[in-house]
Every structure is written in C-alpha cells, then in structure tokens.
C-alpha cells in the first residue's frame, strides 16, 4: 500500500485525463452554486502538472508532489488552487517519511482543513477527503462506489464555506464541484492499486 514514483505519475496523468474529459461538467456543477469555473480552473492546473511531469524524472514521490503543489497553487486561480496545492504540499512532506495511502490522504485532509478553515458537512471537498481518510485509517478497502457515495452526500448539504455558502439553504440539491473533482482524484488513486 505504499505509492511508488511511477504509480504516483500514473495517478496524476489519469486524473489529468479525467479532468480534461469532465471539464465542462465540473464547471456546470459550479454554475448554480458558484461562478462556473471549477472545470476550467482544474484543467488549467492539471495541464501545467501534465506538462511538468510527463517527461520528467523525479527522485521521490515527495519531489513529484512538491512540483504538483506548486503548479496547482500558481495556475488554478480559484479556491481549489490553494486547497489542492496545500493538500499536495502536505502529502509531499509526509511522503518524505511514508507513502502509505492512509498517511498521504490524512496529510492532504489536514492541509485542506487548515487552508479552508473548514470541517465535514460544510458541502466542500472535505466531505470526500474526510470519509476517505477515515476508511483508510481503519484499514478498510475503499471502492470507487464508496467514493461516488461520498461525493453524492454533498448534494443534500447546506454550504457554509466557499462561494456556495452565500446561497445558504439554496445550495441544497446540488453536488459540490470540488467534492466531484476530489472524487475523480481519489478514484484515480484507488485505481493505481498502491
């Protein structure tokens, strides 16, 4: 269950492909409860990641994640930039000691919570990362269906963080776009089978 540099690259390339494919859908999710740019934001960030990692060699998972973090921080432009950026920065630090999935995901979650000053049930990406970390930490297997379900759970929540929070009760009935992109990221991670 420890991630190699090759697996990490596959993970990120798969995520890049998925973001490209789902770009419009992610922005559409962001339209009723946000500013309609989440897909474009993520695509801008992941294009930079793809360009920087596809032909490059990395001495460690930690180095690779650091590069990813910097690209996301500087290219995304929306809230998801500092959030995913911090997630990868924290994973980079942790990966210097351990690349166990549960350690990486827990580090990412802590980073997102710190950066977003948010917790579960606020209708954000945390509602995907948090149950994911919990399952991994209790050594349970996590299926793609589990992750779909974490994403889906944000639909009935009232947003209290991010742009959707301005809508209050009106945010109910919509899946959170950042939860959806986090779902893609974590499903791609599960698929590499580390």
């Amino acid at each position, binding site marked *: 269950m420890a991630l190699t540099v090759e697996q990490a690259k596959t993970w990120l390339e798969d995520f890049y492909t998925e973001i490209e494919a789902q770009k419009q859908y992610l922005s559409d999710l962001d339209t009723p409860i946000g500013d309609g740019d989440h897909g474009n934001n993520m695509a801008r960030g992941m294009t930079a990641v793809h360009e920087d990692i596809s032909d490059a060699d990395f001495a460690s998972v930690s180095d690779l994640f650091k590069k990813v973090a910097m690209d996301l921080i500087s290219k995304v432009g929306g809230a998801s930039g500092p959030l995913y950026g911090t997630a990868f920065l924290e994973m980079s630090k942790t990966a210097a000691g351990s690349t166990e999935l549960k350690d990486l995901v827990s580090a990412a979650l802590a980073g997102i919570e710190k950066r977003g000053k948010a917790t579960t049930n606020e209708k954000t990406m945390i509602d995907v990362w948090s149950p994911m970390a919990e399952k991994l930490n209790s050594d349970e297997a996590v299926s793609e269906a589990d992750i779909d379900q974490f994403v889906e759970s944000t639909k009935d929540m009232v947003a209290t963080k991010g*742009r959707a929070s*301005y809508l209050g009760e*009106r945010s109910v009935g919509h899946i959170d776009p950042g939860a959806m992109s986090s779902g893609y990221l974590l499903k791609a991670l599960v698929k590499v089978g580390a």
Partner: protein
Amino acid sequence: MAYGVVIVSHVEQIAEGVKNLISQVAADVPITTAGGTDDHQVGTSMEKIQKAFDDNSADEILAFYDLGSAKMNLEMAIEFTDKQIHLYDVALIEGSYTATALLEAGTKLDDIEVQLKPLKIK
C-alpha cells in the same frame, strides 16, 4: 428578471470591476453601473446614477454604493426616477455579491434582505 442591480462607486474601475465579479455568478441579473464623475474623476454623478437606473432592464432595482456621498447622489436620483429602488447600506462588494448570487438563485427579496443584514456597515 424582475430585479436588477445598480452599483455606484466613486471610481469607474471599481464599479466596472464589481460588475465583472458579480455577473460571473449571475448571468441573468441585469447589472448597470455608475462610477466616477462625468469627467472620469473620483466622485459620483447623479446623472450617471439616473442613467444606470434607466439603462437597467428591470423596473425594481437593488442599489449599492461605496462611500457616503455616493448615497446622497443615489437618494437624489431615487427622488427623480419612476422605478422602485431599494438602497442598501451594506459593504459594496460583499453585499452586492451576496444579493446578486441570491437573485440568480431565485430568492425572494425578503430573504435576500435577511442575508444582507449582517453586511450592513454604514
């Protein structure tokens, strides 16, 4: 859309920029602006405000402003217009963003005003 939004600022760039920011979350809300004086200086112009009222396709308008003297010009313009204007003493950017996002989501004016209350700072 039944409601429109008017942004009044002492600076043309602020009025235009706020329109950019909020129209991103509210493609269907008519938004017009009155920024700066007639000769593009820092200040406000009652005539520009009247024009922002007139040019707005809605007959009922939520109006937001930056500093106190903009409010005086707004109140004069309100006395001269036939449209129904609701004037809010809230933070310009944060208040107009909140109101416009809620209008786009079809929220009733009463409920919007409840959400604007904590943003009242003038």
